[in-house]
């Protein structure tokens, strides 16, 4: 150690410190490299590389085996071997020929070069000559001569070249002929082995075992830190989208998705059984692949799934765990943490379909999105839209029954017990529970709640108007009623008993919950009321969606008798607490105190008797709880819905959701789920006056149902980033959506299959066939189609516009008279009817220009006779299956077909032609026989009619059908339609 003059510190010591510091820094700089180099996605890609090799090897082996087993291929191999030998023996070694060819080639090249130069000279001379003539530059004569001589020389040369070429070709021909067989065979082999060769090439490129030593080293070196700047095997893969953007609020920028950097097998079906992140997308038909509806290159990933597209790590991609278990797992595996700084975290797997709603919000249902549809249907059934404004359900009718005549239907006791706990009476009712919930089940609140219910019931009954029930036939047969309920199709919209709790609700189930489940009616109301309701539901409840079944008096009575037999005994035994005037005073004071100063309120209270107090506070309470949102209640005609609008709920900022003191995941879906599960629980541990408490009732949804509803709510977003991808708002699309809306609103899909979905009623028809028609399982299966309401596929193409319009308005035409299920009469207005007719036509592309003239359906006498013949049993025997007026066919009902006398008005003439020609093409699987075999059309028709001209035969048959008149039929189509601007509230505005 030395210290030097003119220096303070010991240099040795400084050197030592410096050395330590520099070494430390060196290590840290190395660390910087390592940290930067060490990226998870690189590991994934390396791992994927081994999987790729594995998959390629399997394919390769399979191909190889296939080739080995392929006799033709083996034969080809031997042939090639032979040909090779041949070639070697006969074609190789012919040196003289080779020499000759070579010489000729050289000559040709020389000549060609000469020609090229001469041509160039000629062109130049030509230009000089032209210039001399045109611009008077130089001597035209001399230049012309020059040009001529070059041109002549070029001509000669050209001929010489051609001659040489011919000679050369002759020689090569000889050579080629010799090897022709071999080339041919080899080409054949290549064709057979092409698949194997592709895999082989791939293996060569990626499998280190296939490589030589230097290449193996190169594979390692190219991925080393720093050197990986040049050509690394691992790379960030990204999709940059043109039409879908990332939202920068002020501006939109092309979306960048890098998910495929780790999700490497997403578009390759070979990886469907591999672990994440390599796994194939589960639905390649719809997504990701190039020929799907949503190819990856156009849609990316995060537009549907959410998350941060630019991310290249698990954490920054904002993956969201499905449940607690996965969360813990991720924490362990990926050190996952919740990221509250990204407004659109990835949807947890079970809510993925929320993303569909961004673009498909106008559709009913959204095809392929089962969970989302279920959620939307629950929202429709539960009537969420009544309290919470939703653009999609604007102008939908109120979901609950009319209460303006409640006294004629229910007793006060029933009403009390019902409000207290609707699910006790009927466990699957859509009426939600308002009492005994998280924030009002303490003793004080319960006592108060009892008096609140008294007050509301009192108000309802005090305001109930008189309602005369129509007189019911004295005699009624309950058994007959039961059969009617089963056969008419009531079970399309109602159930006879609630579903088992142990199976997850499906979209089909919900269609059958369109109306209330038919239990306990005997306890609830009188059979007279049920009779009156069945005869004309609109009389009691003008806006009801319950259609008129056109029941005869006796039918209605029988059904009423049957339905009211079921009673709810424990419900009857429930006791009702008496009035507690103190509490009623409190409640009344609370509301009075809001309207006037306290002293005047007290004075006012003193002047009121119990009934007045009950009525006053009942009205106020109905206003508070928003009962009027779902029910028509007198005095609340113009009241506003009490909930918040949900149209943008999914894009609400997380911090706007008050989690209170509830311990659930601080995520949007966590909050929504909790809100549905225990709507009032966010009041827990909060000190609140009765008037401040949360009001949302409990619908007692199952976990599965909640999941579906949460999916929908998450989907309720406004998103500008997809505006270029949303279905264009063309008139056609709008018409379709409007039609779909009515179909959903009226539950048409419960009976009919529309756009490939629905016909839920068929299950109950099978039940009916078995229970009442004595059919066995297989028979029921066979008869099912005939006894079910028709599939409406292609209805727009088939059915005459006017007829359809009239039918929908007043469907008492019996197209299929054998059907027991009855198309009911709906209270459609003109707007609705037009929408529906337009819908079916638009769906089949029928309302497009150009308009064609109506086809000529006249027949000459001769044609008429021929047609009659064709129609008869002798030839086609149409009436073997088809009803013609009042003539019914002879066969069993499963073969019966619609009334042909209706064809003239009901069917579009163009359609009939197509239909007769090839029914299977229009409705695959139809019972209608194919008389004219499309594969051998020319010879399919009867040869002795109209000279065997099939087109003519079909035409006259069609025209013949148009002559059949329904004169023998019982009823006619009535045309009496309410105008669209009549006072049916709501209904008219839906269809402007």
């Amino acid at each position, binding site marked *: 150690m030395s210290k030097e003059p003119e220096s*303070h510190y010991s240099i040795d010591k400084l050197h030592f410190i410096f050395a330590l510091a520099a070494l430390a820094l060196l290590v840290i700089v190395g660390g*910087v490299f390592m*940290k930067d180099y060490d990226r998870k996605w690189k590991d994934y890609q390396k791992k994927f590389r081994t999987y790729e090799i594995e998959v390629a090897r399997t394919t390769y082996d399979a191909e190889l085996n296939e080739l080995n087993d392929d006799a033709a291929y083996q034969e080809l191999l031997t042939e090639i071997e032979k040909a090779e030998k041949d070639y070697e023996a006969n074609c190789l070694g012919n040196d003289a020929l080779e020499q000759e060819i070579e010489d000729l080639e050289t000559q040709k090249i020389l000549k060609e070069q000469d020609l090229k130069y001469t041509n160039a000279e000629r062109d130049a001379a030509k230009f000089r000559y032209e210039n001399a003539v045109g611009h008077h530059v130089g001597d035209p004569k001399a230049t012309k001569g020059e040009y001529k001589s070059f041109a002549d020389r070029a001509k000669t040369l050209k001929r010489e070249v051609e001659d040489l070429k011919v000679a050369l070709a002759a020689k090569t021909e000889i050579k080629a002929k010799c090897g022709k067989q071999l080339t041919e065979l080899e080409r054949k082999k290549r064709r057979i082995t092409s698949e194997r060769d592709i895999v082989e090439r791939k293996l060569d490129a990626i499998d280190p075992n296939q490589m030589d030593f230097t290449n193996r080293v190169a594979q390692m070196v190219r991925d080393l830190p720093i050197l990986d700047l040049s050509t690394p095997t691992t790379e960030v893969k990204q999709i940059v989208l043109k039409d879908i953007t*990332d939202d920068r609020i002020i*501006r939109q920028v092309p979306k960048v998705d*890098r998910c495929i950097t780790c999700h490497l097998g997403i578009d390759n079906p070979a990886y469907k059984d591999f672990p994440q992140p390599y796994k194939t997308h589960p639905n390649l038909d719809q997504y990701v692949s190039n020929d799907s509806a949503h190819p990856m290159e156009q849609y990316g990933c995060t537009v549907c799934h959410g998350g941060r597209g630019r*991310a290249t790590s698990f954490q920054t991609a904002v993956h969201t765990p499905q449940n607690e278990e996965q969360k813990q797992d991720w924490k362990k595996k990926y050190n996952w943490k919740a990221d509250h700084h990204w407004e659109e975290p990835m949807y947890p797997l079970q809510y993925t379909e929320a993303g569909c709603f961004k673009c498909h919000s106008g559709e009913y249902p959204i095809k392929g999105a089962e969970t989302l549809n279920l959620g939307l249907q629950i929202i429709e059934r539960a009537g969420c839209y009544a309290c919470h404004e939703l653009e999609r359900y604007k102008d939908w009718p109120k979901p609950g029954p009319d209460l303006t005549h409640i006294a004629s239907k229910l007793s006060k006791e029933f009403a009390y017990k019902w409000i207290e706990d609707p699910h006790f009476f009927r466990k699957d009712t859509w009426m939600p529970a308002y009492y005994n919930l998280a924030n009002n089940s303490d003793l004080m609140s319960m006592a108060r709640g009892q008096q609140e219910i008294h007050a509301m019931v009192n108000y309802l009954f005090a305001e109930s108007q008189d309602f005369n029930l129509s007189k019911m036939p004295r005699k009624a047969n309950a058994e007959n009623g039961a059969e009617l309920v089963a056969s008419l199709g009531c079970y399309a919209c109602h159930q006879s008993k609630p579903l088992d709790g142990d199976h997850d609700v499906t979209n089909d189930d919900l269609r059958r919950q369109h109306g209330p489940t038919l239990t306990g009616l005997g306890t609830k109301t009188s059979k007279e009321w049920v009779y009156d309701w069945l005869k004309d539901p609109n009389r009691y409840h003008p806006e009801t969606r319950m259609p008129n079944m056109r029941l005869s008096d006796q039918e209605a009575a029988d059904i009423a008798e049957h339905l009211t037999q079921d009673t709810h005994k424990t419900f009857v035994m429930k006791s009702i607490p008496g009035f507690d005037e103190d509490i009623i005073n409190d409640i009344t004071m609370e509301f009075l105190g809001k309207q006037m100063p306290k002293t005047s309120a007290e004075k006012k209270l003193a002047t009121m008797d119990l009934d007045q107090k009950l009525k006053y506070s009942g009205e106020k309470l109905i206003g508070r709880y928003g009962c009027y949102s779902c029910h028509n209640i007198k005095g609340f005609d113009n009241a506003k819905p009490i909930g918040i609008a949900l149209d943008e709920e999914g894009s609400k900022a997380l911090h706007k959701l008050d989690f209170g003191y509830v311990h659930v995941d601080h995520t949007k879906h966590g909050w929504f789920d909790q809100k549905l599960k225990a709507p009032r629980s966010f009041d827990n541990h909060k000190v609140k006056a009765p008037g401040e408490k949360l009001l949302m009732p409990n619908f007692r949804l199952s976990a599965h149902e909640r999941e579906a509803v949460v999916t929908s709510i998450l989907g309720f977003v406004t998103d500008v980033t997809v505006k270029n991808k949303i279905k264009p708002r063309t008139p056609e699309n709008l018409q379709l959506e409007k039609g779909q809306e009515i179909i959903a609103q009226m539950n048409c899909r419960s009976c009919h299959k529309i756009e490939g979905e629905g016909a839920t009623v068929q299950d109950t028809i099978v039940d009916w066939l078995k229970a009442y028609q004595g059919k066995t399982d297989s028979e029921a299966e066979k008869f099912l189609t005939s006894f079910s309401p028709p599939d409406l596929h292609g209805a727009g193409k088939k059915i005459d516009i006017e007829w359809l319009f009239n039918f929908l308005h007043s469907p008492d035409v019996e197209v299929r008279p054998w059907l027991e299920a009855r198309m009911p009469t709906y209270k459609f207005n003109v707007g609705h009817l037009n929408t529906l007719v337009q819908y079916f036509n638009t769906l089949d592309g029928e309302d497009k220009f150009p308009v064609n003239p109506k086809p000529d359906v006249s027949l000459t006498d001769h044609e008429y006779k021929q047609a009659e013949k064709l129609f008869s049993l002798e030839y086609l025997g149409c009436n073997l299956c088809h009803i013609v007026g009042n003539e019914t066919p002879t066969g069993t009902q499963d073969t019966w077909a619609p009334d042909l006398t209706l064809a003239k008005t009901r069917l579009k003439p163009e359609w009939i032609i197509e239909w007769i020609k090839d029914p299977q093409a229009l409705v695959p699987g139809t019972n209608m026989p194919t008389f004219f075999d499309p594969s051998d059309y020319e010879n399919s028709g009867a040869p002795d009619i109209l000279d065997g001209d099939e087109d003519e035969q079909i035409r006259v048959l069609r025209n013949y059908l148009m002559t059949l008149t329904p004169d023998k039929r019982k009823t006619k189509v009535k045309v009496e339609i309410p105008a669209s601007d009549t006072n049916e509230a709501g209904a008219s505005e839906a269809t402007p």
Partner: protein
Amino acid sequence: MSNHDPNKETLFQKMQKTQVFRAIFRTGGAIDTHKKRVLVTLNNVFLHLHPVRLPKHAVKVKYTWCMGGLSFFVFLVLTITGILLMFYYRPTVEYAYGDVTDLSEQVPLGIMREIHRWAAHLMVITVWLHMFRVFMTGSYKPPREFNWIVGVILLILTMLMSFTGYLLPWDQLAIWAITVGANMAAATPVIGTAGPGASLLAIGDVNFVHGTADAKFAMLGGRFVGEAALIRFYVLHCIGLPFVMMLFMIVHFWRVRKDGGISGPT
């Protein structure tokens, strides 16, 4: 540099004799004599800021804390990393956020951003501590009053640099911090719309201080923190303020020497 044969020249020694080496390193190779040690300070452009000799206390870390020097070093780090960041950063509403995201997601050694950001914080701290040390040693006392003022100005500039840089990632943190700051500017007396006397600069009914003509607008180039503000802050951060800072640094360093070197007891 072996010691076996003193007459034998090592390669290093030979290299020192070449014309090229001598052209570059005036002082010559190994600085092994006191004369050379003096010369190296005099001859080197970077070192000539220092005097050749110093009183001993001025060399002691105990006295100086090295904070001034480190502030300058951190400034250099910020300059270099800042320039490198400009390769990947575009100051537009569309790209700013994505480019910053990409620094951590795909740009190799995007750690540059971390270094830049933390160095910015560090610089504020070192400058404060430098000021604290200068105060505690009474180094602002005559004849160094002016250099103290320059120092305060540099401190303000440091914070402004940091403040303008805060907006550039264009995330929530950025725009709201700047919004809070910009609204203070709006409260400037007389020339801010929300400041006292905002209506003083008026002739008749025509008010000359309004939403698009006040202190806040001058800062943001708009009514709120938007595209214009981003480009303004970017230019200030990358060109305007560094330039001013450079000027004041030159003065600061120059005055350190001219005021008699680092302070000390007289």
